């Protein structure tokens, strides 16, 4: 009789959080499904389910290795963990002692759950030059929410705990239905739609629900701020704003009123390339049918006006009183375990660290705790940023950052680089030492992807392959070698430490699976109580919800939201527009991939073998390209090839390219086909958001033309029977 065992854990295949039930037979995973007794009711998506092919994947990194040839040539030699850690320690010590701790950079991806450990490692070493994708994903939102409300995290209340679901649901440049990103859960969002009166989708491209929405607005990429300003204009002109909230709890309404005056529906219609009626209709729904939520997508953070765009959207929330009401935008009361991020906040962030943050002089909102990655790239190339050691975990900076050619040049210049990952990939190839990391099914850890109303447990189901280790272990070991006081005897001691405020140990928590605060324990209308401030109010300098920000003004920014055109748009660069007549966004993401991941998972790769871009049928016809063609997409920085999907659901004159693509099966030389289809070959790192330093990744200009057969020479074009793409059926 086979020995069966069931283990419950938490999925981390996107930002994650879905409860998982795994069945093992004789030690082998034979089944994965959702845990019915979890926050997500037993549901999961293709990414999480395909985790079986991570655990079982023969291409996993199993041992530490060092590069023995030139970077990017893929000549590796297996080494021991001792040799790897000794080398890393020696290089870090040399950099810290001789050049200063700030010459050690720590980088991460969006996260296998290591965010808090990367930050702790950086602080324990004494550097704040942390490179994260945050500045193009979520950080600007948190910063701006913090600026306006005093509390950095506003989430959508899709749960009904306060008695109401959102009556008006806006989804702005986001596909929450395909991944539980940025601390929001797709399962709850979709449930809340059953109670929603107005469902508004704002997206130039039809996401899954767009054509069934009450209203679908397709603005020209990069003009979202103007749309938000226009909606505020209508709300104010028609006197629809929440008088009680605005009169009593906000600061700067009159200035805002003055500022949005010029953004009439007619003007917004002209800027955004949308009918003016849509601006009016959306504004009325939002202000009249309250409560409501705005689900903000990170595409808005991949624009060089992101600071003001997000400020305008946050002001729009306040204008309708959609703050802290049941069914509106809310800051969660944390579970008893408190802020898990305290594990890095408890280490000091010193003035010395702050003074060396790359980009802090210019991007004052963004580069406060982490550096500005694009500035770092420019400085490394110019020989001005003495990054001696780059310790990288998970993220493919080489793929996701703007202007790939420059990023490659900079990364190749870094003297010593370490990368921890599950698979070989572009970032590994650029490293001197690679460390094999564990999958979420192979670790014990606390799931806390951004603080919210619960934390969950990752329970180890199987051992990692070979000598692979959890990121937590790797950080603890590296950290201990440089600053032993700041790290822990073991991973379990660290987890106990992180859970102590809830009176919990890891052992107990692992059994409980979750620590949360929900239902009647969540607190609404905190500003009307002593929660933040005695006598009520918001934890801002004025104690109010700040339409007008004195703090921004003191940093030299406009205290009110302001619309700026993208760096390269038909309006800002009519000269370029003549040669590059299509507005390009790199915002296309598929439900079965998560950013640069999963193209080496056969079950997932089978859903889309080659990266696609989308054009409207009329636009495709205009430029002589057809559905299924491999086309060149060209910008002033370079050109790439993707497969064209002619799609009636995209705005005319706009191209949507699949982001973050490389080919795991392509050879090491050329960083696994990094230049073939990755749209960041086309993006610019010259025009950045003044507050956050975010580049225009989702609003640029391009031209397209069909690729000739003789130009399709790489492995990926040759046959379908290679690498991770399942072979075609053979009949018999």
């Amino acid at each position, binding site marked *: 009789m086979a020995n069966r065992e069931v283990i419950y854990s938490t999925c981390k295949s996107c930002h994650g959080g879905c409860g998982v039930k795994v069945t093992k037979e004789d030690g082998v995973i*034979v089944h994965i499904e959702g845990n019915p007794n979890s926050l997500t009711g037993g549901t999961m998506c*293709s990414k999480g389910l395909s985790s079986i092919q991570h655990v079982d994947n023969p291409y996993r990194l199993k041992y530490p290795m060092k590069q023995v040839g030139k970077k990017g040539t893929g000549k590796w030699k297996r080494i021991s963990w001792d040799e790897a850690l000794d080398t890393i320690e020696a290089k870090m010590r040399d950099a810290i002692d001789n050049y200063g701790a700030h010459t050690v950079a720590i980088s991460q991806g969006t996260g296998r759950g290591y965010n808090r450990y990367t930050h702790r490692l950086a602080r324990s070493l004494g550097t704040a030059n942390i490179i994260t994708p945050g500045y193009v994903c979520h950080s600007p939102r948190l910063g701006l929410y913090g600026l306006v409300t005093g509390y950095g995290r506003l989430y959508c209340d899709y749960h009904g705990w306060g008695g109401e679901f959102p*009556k008006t649901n806006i989804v702005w440049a986001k596909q929450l239905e395909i991944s539980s990103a940025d601390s929001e859960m797709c399962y709850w969002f979709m449930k809340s739609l059953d109670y929603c009166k107005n469902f508004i989708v704002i997206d130039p491209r039809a996401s899954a629900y767009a054509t069934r929405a009450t209203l679908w607005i397709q603005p020209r990429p990069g003009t979202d701020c103007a749309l938000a300003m226009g909606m505020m204009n209508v709300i104010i002109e028609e006197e629809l704003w929440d008088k009680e909230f605005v009169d009593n709890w906000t600061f700067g309404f009159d200035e805002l009123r003055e500022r949005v005056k010029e953004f009439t529906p007619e003007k917004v219609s002209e800027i955004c390339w949308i009918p003016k009626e849509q601006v009016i209709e959306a504004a009325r729904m939002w202000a009249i049918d309250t409560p409501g939520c705005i689900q903000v997508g990170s595409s808005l953070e991949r624009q060089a006006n992101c600071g003001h765009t997000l400020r305008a959207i946050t002001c729009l929330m306040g204008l309708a009183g959609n703050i802290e009401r049941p069914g509106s935008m809310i800051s969660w009361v944390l579970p008893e375990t408190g802020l898990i991020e305290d594990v890095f906040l408890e280490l000091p962030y010193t003035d010395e660290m702050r003074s060396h943050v790359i980009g802090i002089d210019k991007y004052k909102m963004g580069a406060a705790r982490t550096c500005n990655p694009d500035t770092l790239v420019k400085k490394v190339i110019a020989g001005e940023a003495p990054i001696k050691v780059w310790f990288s975990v998970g993220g493919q900076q080489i793929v996701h950052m703007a202007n790939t050619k420059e990023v490659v040049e900079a990364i190749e210049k870094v003297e010593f680089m370490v990368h921890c990952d599950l698979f070989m990939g572009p970032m590994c190839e650029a490293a001197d030492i690679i460390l094999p990391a564990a999958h979420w099914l192979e670790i014990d850890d606390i799931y806390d992807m951004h603080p919210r109303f619960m934390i969950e447990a990752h329970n180890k189901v199987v051992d990692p392959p070979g000598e692979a280790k959890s990121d937590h272990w790797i950080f603890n070991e590296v950290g201990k070698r440089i600053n032993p006081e700041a790290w822990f005897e073991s991973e379990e001691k660290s987890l106990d430490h992180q859970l102590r405020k809830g009176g919990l140990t890891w052992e107990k928590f692992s059994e409980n699976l979750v620590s949360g605060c929900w239902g*009647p324990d969540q607190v609404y209308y905190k500003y009307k109580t002593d929660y933040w401030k005695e006598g009520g109010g918001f934890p801002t300098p004025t104690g109010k919800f700040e339409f007008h920000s004195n703090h921004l003004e003191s940093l030299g920014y406009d205290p009110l939201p302001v619309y700026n055109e993208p760096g390269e748009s038909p309006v800002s660069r009519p000269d370029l527009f003549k040669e590059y007549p299509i507005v390009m966004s790199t915002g296309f993401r598929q439900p079965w991939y998560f950013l640069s991941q999963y193209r080496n998972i056969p079950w997932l790769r*089978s*859903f889309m073998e080659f990266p696609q871009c989308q054009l409207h049928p009329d636009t495709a016809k205009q430029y002589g390209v057809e559905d299924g063609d491999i086309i060149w997409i060209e910008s002033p920085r370079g050109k790439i090839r993707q497969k064209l999907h002619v799609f*009636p659901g995209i705005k005319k004159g706009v191209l949507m390219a699949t982001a973050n693509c490389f080919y795991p099966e392509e050879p090491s030389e050329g960083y696994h086909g990094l230049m073939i289809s990755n749209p960041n070959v086309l993006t610019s790192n010259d025009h950045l958001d003044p507050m956050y330093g975010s580049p225009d990744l989702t609003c640029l200009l391009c031209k397209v033309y069909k690729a000739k057969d003789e130009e399709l020479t790489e492995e990926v074009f040759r046959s379908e029977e290679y690498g991770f793409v399942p072979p*075609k059926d053979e009949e018999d």
Partner: protein
Amino acid sequence: MRWGMVINLAKCTRCHGCIAACRIEHFLPLRMTWPRLIALETDDGFSVDVSTYPVRCNQCKEAPCVEVCPTEASYKREDGIVAIDSNKCFGCRYCVIACPYQNRTYLSRKRNPNYFPEHAKTGFEKKGKQIYPHQVGTTEKCNFCMERIDAGLAKGLKPGIDREATPACVNICQARALTFGDLDDPNSNVSKLIREKNGFVLHDEYGTEPSVYYIDYKLGGAPSNKAPIEAQTGSHIQHLSSVYAPSKEKLAKKNAD
């Protein structure tokens, strides 16, 4: 009793979770796909429709595949499920051609059997050979997870209500776009949905009488945004954590306020 499924086109997000769940449940060989998703993207000049049609064997009442099968390998069960006895199937593929919905797939003898073609079978594949073997040279299709249904019924569970007795794809769907139940029972969840949301079948004109129905509607337009009491208490998730004690007093106080 006739098992049926209702698929909500308004909710499907094209996430492919149903396909992945099926691959796990039945240890499907590479490229073998029982359920599929068909994209329908149209513009009639007035409005754009971007839809995803999840399709799988319709378990037709008048099943052409059963009629053409020369060996009676394809047969109808009393509960309406069309099943294939792979011991009787010799791979003639008449049924593949006969199915007007193209929901049957032939498992080729030459098919590369490994998930990672250049490597040995993974642990999951090896286990699958014991737990849910596939017979090359036969035809396969969705069977509504009849093994789950049969085992569940034997335990006194209700398919479509109790998870253990319900098809894997229905359980996994994040959007809750799939509903399973008894079409013969007018009060079942599926019968009600078909009645209330004007359920339809694909290609009704074929006269195959499918057991898979579709519903479609505009999102939004809900008459009320008031949360039912169980949503307010969070009672459906409270049993999760022994740390968390349900605050009945707090709720009582809240309602009194």
